[in-house]
């Protein structure tokens, strides 16, 4: 016999109940604005790669222009996508509304303006602008961490996702502190190899401690749902959580002993490997054999992460003595994460649009499926361009082909522009379609 919980009652007539339909999810504007700015930075970052492809092909890892392109991806595209997804996902995951919604908007403004100043300062060499931008970015990171902890502490249950997001909150504070310290010592007496060790630690604290930890926590909930995968073991995810947190924590401590650093990177690498195993288990146990464009692109990102993981020991041990390898490694890592995130845009944005536009019509009239809100063919084309561009960039940066890197960057830029157009169309056209009887915008 089935249990008998207290039933929810709705007497006839059943008018669409907005509060019930919206649940704890925030206004679509909050994640929507984050995604809009993130996509803009995705296009700008890809454009910067085209513009500075010469420097990249030469393996000029420390050139301000290359650093500017890297930060457009890392801070603009990747971080803002993560923040937007967190603001949408967190209330649903923990069953509590976001604690400080206004703070999230203020953080977005600080982040957007801060990154513009930071990039402007990097490219022009204006130190004041650089520090001002860094302050804006730091306040954004800290505001997200504060909101995250304030929301998480209200949760009744503490599953893996809860712990992963709590762990990432720590590194949301550590990363800007590390970055500011690095910025202040940028013109100091550090040798090239010392500077490499510091820059590499800073980058990996952010990528391992924030990006990968959030990916572990969020993917743990979303991948089984998107793939309709049931019964996969969760042990690899727990191992990934512990190892990534431990690795990022070790890298956060400015101790520069070779054995210590090797242990920290090994722990981070094993954590990433455990995450990949978990993701592979979800893909393997999926019930639906057909994979949509979003999950294909996310899968390509996971393959890319495997490639980055294979290159990592060689690139990090050789450091600045082999600039093309080092540049190819960072391109592989940032590009793989970018593909994973770009894939999720095809799942998250159409879902949010569907939820708000068509959700209240469910049960009353025929509504489109989430996947019908965009053209599958165009999404596949955009994904293929992004994946090809990424692959070309990794290989040709390593080889040092200037023309090749330029073509690969252009391919990536075309894919990024196409994805930005598809997602914008979903967000804008679906609105008109809803007003026109709920027909799909395809």
């Amino acid at each position, binding site marked *: 016999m089935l249990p008998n919980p207290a039933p929810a009652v709705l*007497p006839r007539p059943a008018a669409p109940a907005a509060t019930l339909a919206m649940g704890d999810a925030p206004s679509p504007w909050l994640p929507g604005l984050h995604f809009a700015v993130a996509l803009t930075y995705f296009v700008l970052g890809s454009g910067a790669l085209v513009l500075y492809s010469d420097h990249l092909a030469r393996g000029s890892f420390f050139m301000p222009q290359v650093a500017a392109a890297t930060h457009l991806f890392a801070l603009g595209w990747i971080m803002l996508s993560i923040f937007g997804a967190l603001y949408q996902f967190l209330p649903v995951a923990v069953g509590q509304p976001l604690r400080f919604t206004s703070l999230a908007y203020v953080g977005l403004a600080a982040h957007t303006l801060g990154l513009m100043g930071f990039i402007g300062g990097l490219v022009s060499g204006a130190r004041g602008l650089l520090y001002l931008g860094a302050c804006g970015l730091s306040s954004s990171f800290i505001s997200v961490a504060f909101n995250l902890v304030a929301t998480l502490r209200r949760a009744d249950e503490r599953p893996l996702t809860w712990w992963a997001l709590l762990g990432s909150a720590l590194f949301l504070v550590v990363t800007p502190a590390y970055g500011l310290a690095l910025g202040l010592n940028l013109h100091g007496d550090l040798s090239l190899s010392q500077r490499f060790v510091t820059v590499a630690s800073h980058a990996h604290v952010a990528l391992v401690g924030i990006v990968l930890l959030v990916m572990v926590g969020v993917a743990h909930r979303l991948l089984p749902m998107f793939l309709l995968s049931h019964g996969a073991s969760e042990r690899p995810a727990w191992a990934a959580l512990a190892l990534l947190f431990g690795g990022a924590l070790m890298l956060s401590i400015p101790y520069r002993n070779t054995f210590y650093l090797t242990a920290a990177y090994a722990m981070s690498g094993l954590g990433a490997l455990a995450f990949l195993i978990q993701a592979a288990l979800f893909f393997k146990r999926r019930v639906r054999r057909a994979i949509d464009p979003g999950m294909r692109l996310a899968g390509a990102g996971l393959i890319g992460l495997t490639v980055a993981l294979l290159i990592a020991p060689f690139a990090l041990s050789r450091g600045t003595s082999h600039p093309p390898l080092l540049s190819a490694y960072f391109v592989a890592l940032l590009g793989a994460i970018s593909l994973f995130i770009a894939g999720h845009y095809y799942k998250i944005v159409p879902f949010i649009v569907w939820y708000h536009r068509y959700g209240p019509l*469910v049960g009353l009239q025929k509504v489109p499926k989430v996947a019908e809100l965009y053209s599958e063919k165009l999404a596949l084309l955009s994904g293929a361009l992004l994946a090809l561009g990424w692959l070309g960039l990794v290989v040709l940066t390593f080889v040092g082909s200037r023309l090749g890197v330029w073509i690969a960057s252009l391919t990536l830029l075309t894919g990024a522009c196409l994805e930005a157009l598809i997602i914008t169309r979903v967000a804008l056209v679906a609105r008109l379609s809803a007003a026109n009887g709920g027909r799909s915008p395809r």
Partner: protein
Amino acid sequence: MTTQEHTEDHVWRALSAVIDPEIGLDIVTLGLVYDVQVAERIATVTFTLTTPGCPMEHIIQSGIQRAASEVEGVTEVRTQLVWEPRWHPGMAQRGML
């Protein structure tokens, strides 16, 4: 078929209009509806979701209420979200996933 069974049958049919937009199938085909009972013009629908914490909970619940309340002979709809037995893909109609 009694009037009550007849109304229950219509509620089942009405629930076919409630889709899981991510999977693209309706909740009856997916096997998410465990039971429908109508007594004294009150329809009680017992259902589950593919996974706990599914973001579709509110949409599906309100969709059930809207769809069932459209059925002739139903004046009130009650929904019961249950997690036992836990849903698994084998509960969906064969060959539909």
